[in-house]
């Protein structure tokens, strides 16, 4: 069938070309060919992009550059400090020799022609707890069940200071003591399905890019680029409080030998394209907001202090209320689908609050930043600002983060009982 269709297309293209050439030929022979005549009478019109909207606010005009050159030598007390541009918590240095956590590697390749530098790494699944240190701080056990990644000490009592001072990390090494978490995947048989692995990509334009400064003169500037402020934390994806759809990009996917990759809106659709027992993995992908208000490290709903860039009058940029561009990250969690699974029973723990929606519809994630500042400065200075293609914890300066000793490509254990 496809061969027949191709033959038809070839014939039709030929006829079309013949029509075009023969119709233009007289004008050519008369020396009167006017290419503009082909568009005569057509209005040029203004192109409209999906999601185009109007930015009603004015921009602040504040400018900063992202040096990323954080030195990490100050004391370990907590509090809030301000530079001339924004506020953040007082940096807490690592309480170990950070250089013992690095190995030497060749420099990575450029990310060009891509316009963003990338810093990527892989994580293992961490602890499974009914905790949420952002939504229910100091109240362990109050949340729906979460699957954590990153800091192995993260729980309902975690703060920026405690994360910076405690724990190993399933995301490479304790140089990244940030905590990442999302609703636990349930198999419908009383178990939590732990993901095989998680990949996280931090990306942004280099600070020297004119689109990284609102005063660069580039009318298409996205905002003012800054490093991730200490103590920043937020929730993103489906809003469990309001029930509003996520503003950022979330979707499910499938990868593997017999997978049909796609952007699927919910778990059942993704799992239908992810045959069990054939080495496939179902993925949940979520993109974090990359626009910050420059003032607040958290907000009452844990969302409003950050935002997503969008098209405003045809220009892709941060909203005027959130003009600071931080490195945005994408988190991809991948679960193996085994022959003994019944994927039709799978759901996220948070789906129980919205049984009227397809499983997976309540997909969201939380992030509590707790990077070592010197290391973050390295990947900002190099991977991001030098437009490099950094993977596996490569810092872009000839150094790479060590890998978590518990890392494996398959979850071990894959199933754990849902705590009662």
């Amino acid at each position, binding site marked *: 069938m496809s061969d027949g269709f191709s033959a038809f297309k070839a014939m*039709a*293209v030929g*006829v*079309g*070309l*013949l*029509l*075009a050439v023969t*119709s*233009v*030929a*007289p*004008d050519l022979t008369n020396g009167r060919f006017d290419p503009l005549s*082909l568009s*005569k009478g057509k209005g040029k019109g203004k192109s409209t992009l999906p999601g185009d909207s109007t930015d009603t606010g004015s921009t602040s005009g504040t400018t900063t550059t992202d040096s990323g050159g954080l030195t990490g030598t100050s004391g370990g007390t907590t509090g809030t400090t301000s530079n001339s541009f924004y506020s953040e918590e007082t940096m807490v240095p690592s309480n170990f020799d950070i250089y013992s*956590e690095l*190995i030497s*590697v060749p420099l990575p390749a450029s990310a060009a022609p891509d316009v963003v530098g990338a810093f*990527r*790494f*892989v994580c293992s699944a*961490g*602890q*499974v*707890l009914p*905790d949420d240190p952002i939504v229910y701080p100091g109240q*362990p056990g109050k949340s729906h069940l979460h699957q954590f990644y990153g800091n*192995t000490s993260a*729980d309902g009592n975690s703060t920026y200071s405690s994360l910076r001072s405690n724990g*190993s*990390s399933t995301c490479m*090494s304790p140089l990244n003591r940030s905590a990442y978490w999302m609703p636990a995947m349930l198999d419908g048989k009383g178990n939590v399905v*732990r993901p095989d692995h998680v*990949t996280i*990509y931090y990306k942004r334009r280099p600070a020297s890019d004119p689109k990284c400064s609102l005063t660069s003169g580039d009318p298409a500037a996205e905002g003012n680029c800054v490093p991730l402020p200490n103590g920043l934390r937020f929730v993103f994806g489906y809003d469990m409080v309001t029930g509003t759809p996520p503003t950022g990009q979330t979707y499910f*996917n499938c*990868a593997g030998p017999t997978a049909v*990759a*796609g*952007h699927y809106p919910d778990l059942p659709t993704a799992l239908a394209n992810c045959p069990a027992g054939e080495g496939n993995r179902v993925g949940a992908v979520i993109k974090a907001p990359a626009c910050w208000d420059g003032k607040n490290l958290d907000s009452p709903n844990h969302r409003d202090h950050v935002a997503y860039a969008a098209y405003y009058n045809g220009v892709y940029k941060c909203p005027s209320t959130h003009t600071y561009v931080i490195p945005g990250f994408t988190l*991809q969690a991948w679960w193996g689908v085994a022959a003994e699974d019944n994927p039709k029973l799978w759901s996220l723990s948070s789906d129980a609050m919205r049984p009227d929606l397809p499983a997976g519809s309540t997909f969201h994630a939380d992030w509590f930043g707790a990077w070592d500042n010197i290391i973050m400065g390295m990947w900002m200075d190099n991977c991001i600002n030098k437009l490099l293609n950094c*993977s*596996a*914890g*490569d810092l872009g300066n000839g150094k*790479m983060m*060590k*890998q*978590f*000793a*518990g*890392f*494996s*490509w*398959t979850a*071990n*254990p894959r199933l*754990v*009982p849902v*705590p009662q």
Partner: protein
Amino acid sequence: MRPTRFAAIGLITVAMLAGCNSPDPASNEIAKESAESNAVIEAAKNHPALSQHSSSATGKPLPPLPGVNIPAPETSNTSQPEHHHPEQ
């Protein structure tokens, strides 16, 4: 019908049919993401901690935690390569 109209129709026909051969943007995006994801995994497989079983691994297996006590992976200072990962 004026020759220019024939030309316009012809070119539009060509453009439309040529478009049949262009992958749609969503497919392109998915293919690009898959390629990036595969590249990241390949790069991770080449991390010295995995490819050389060296001291490039760090940290300790997860400790028992309240809520769910997850048995620690049976690793010490090395990690487990995937079954199809080439042994060094």
